[in-house]
């Protein structure tokens, strides 16, 4: 099935107003570089790291440590 761009087909609620095609260029696989995505994902990772640090303070300084032990103990090897 051939898919047609959605924006060419969508209509506003009035049923009469056709949304203008907003396409100004066509980007193929080779010329598209998702740099913006890389930046957003980078920001997300940064937030995750900061929140992890925050949780460290919440857990270890707020309620005392609850570490389960050495990795070897945990998997029953020692």
């Amino acid at each position, binding site marked *: 099935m051939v898919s047609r761009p959605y924006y060419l087909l969508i209509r*506003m609620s009035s049923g009469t107003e056709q949304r203008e095609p*907003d396409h100004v260029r*066509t980007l193929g696989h080779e010329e*598209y570089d998702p740099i913006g995505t890389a930046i957003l994902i980078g920001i997300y990772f940064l937030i995750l790291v900061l929140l992890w640090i925050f949780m460290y303070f919440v857990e270890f300084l707020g309620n005392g440590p*609850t570490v389960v032990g050495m990795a070897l103990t945990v998997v029953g090897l020692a």
Partner: protein
Amino acid sequence: MRNAYLDQFPDEARVIKAAFWSSFIALAIGGVLGLVQALHRTDVFRFIQSPDYYTVLTAHGVLLVIVFTIFFLVGTFTWAVTTSLDRGVVDTRFTWAWYIMMVIGAALAGITIFSGFLESAPSILGSELNADVLFTFYAPLEAHPFFYIGLVVFVVGSWLAGVDWFRTWLAWRRENPDERIPLPTFMVLTTTLFWYICTLGVSLSILVFLLPWSLGITESVNPLLTRTMFWYFGHAVVYFWLMPAYLMWYTMLPKFSGGKLFSDPLARVVFVLFLLLSTPLGIHHQYLDPGIAEGYKFIAMTNTMFLLLPSLLTAFTVVASMEHGARQRGGEGYLGWLKALPWRDPIFTGMALAGLMFAAAGFSGMINAGMNINYLVHNTWWVVGHFHLTVGTAVALTFMAASYWFIPQLTGKELWNRSVALGQVVLWFIGMTFMTNAMHRSGLFGLPRRTAEPQYQGFDFEPAVGTVGEINMQVALGAVILTLSLALFLLNMVMTSIGSNSESIPDNTYADTLSGAEDSPRILDNLKLWTAIAVVLVIIAYTLPLASIIDAGGLFGPDIEGFRLSTWVDPAVIESLSEVIR
């Protein structure tokens, strides 16, 4: 000439529409009960007795995370299979059969739960009709047999839906032997496979333990065993809810953004990873259960962390597809392209906001999954905040946004009001922001979940920031906004359905790809191989823990040998049988 789904597949459109309306009814009832709970718990407005809170909680949970999500899923998957294979189902009578079966199962479980509100519930099969067992219906909480029977009928209905999708695909494959599985169908098939694997555990739990126990055939159960079998299913089911949302994000959101899916092969890898990893990690819900050795919990944690991979792959692929659309629409700069996205389109905005909330849920999920830090938030309102971001927003908001596309496709009628729809998805986002941030924060100072009155005499919770009163107000306000949003959604659906036919419905299509199936290795389509590996992983993760639980506590509880046959058989026969055995 109009080429909506209704025009292509009129018979299938009727079943899918029925499935969607079933899900909307469950959403309406379950959503209102959410408001009742929020107001009761926070002591803003109490008009039910606190014991009834648990009936409300059970109905809210079961109606929303089982009935709403799965009815919407079966509708979406039937649409995805028929649209992407460009052929109808093999026999719509079979399709109607599984749909009706699911309706009967949901109604039976629902009636049993709601009987809990009656002053004196009727006694059927020797016990009172109620099921105040919450969505997590494991022992020691016991429901009326009808609740378990209803769930089994519902799940078997969903299994038959899976059979329907598989036989439609097999029929297509006979006609197209050398073609790759189209991506939407691939997503449906892999999801269905892990649904079969995970529901096997909960079905056995119900049929072998909970139902006989509830009927009085067996005297007791091993609670840890039924808990473990529930969570064997209980985590995979969250991916079952999530996969239709993923399907929409991968196959529709790029199109609504004005672009193409960045990579078909990456999408296939993600769904294969979900098939492999959804089930062998349920024990991460049981970090605090005594009776399961820490080593098994550690393995479950490792598997859970591996499962972050497909979610992060999805974050990249879906955002990259949106960026592609934005740049084709003239977006420029490192982040300036975000402004070029179609934020006035309720379908796009709803799905994008749902994805944003899912990113936040990713963090709280990592905290839940971490074995030691889970101890901090276990059984607190943090967890409730987490799943209101996942199933309550990533899934529910995506489904509502998708409905703005689906219902015109299925009815041939134009969406009643796009502005109301846009306001609705934004309201949901705002309401959930209030509610879930407060829930998460309250979990950090230990405010418990599953509690009708978390107000204790002689004890005050001490939040690091803000007050308990402020947190309660945020939850109550959030719940009111969410209910308003829900009402607007339902209004739009009803008004659209009773509107007049329109010729200007968009064609029924899904997103094109930048890198298509031809770029992905053929082995990704080898469903037998991935299923076999998934089964092996489940065996590795669960054999020893289950053996150890049964060894320690018996199949039916410590020192209980099993069936209380005297209920059904003459005691003299038992005595003589026992003589023979001795």
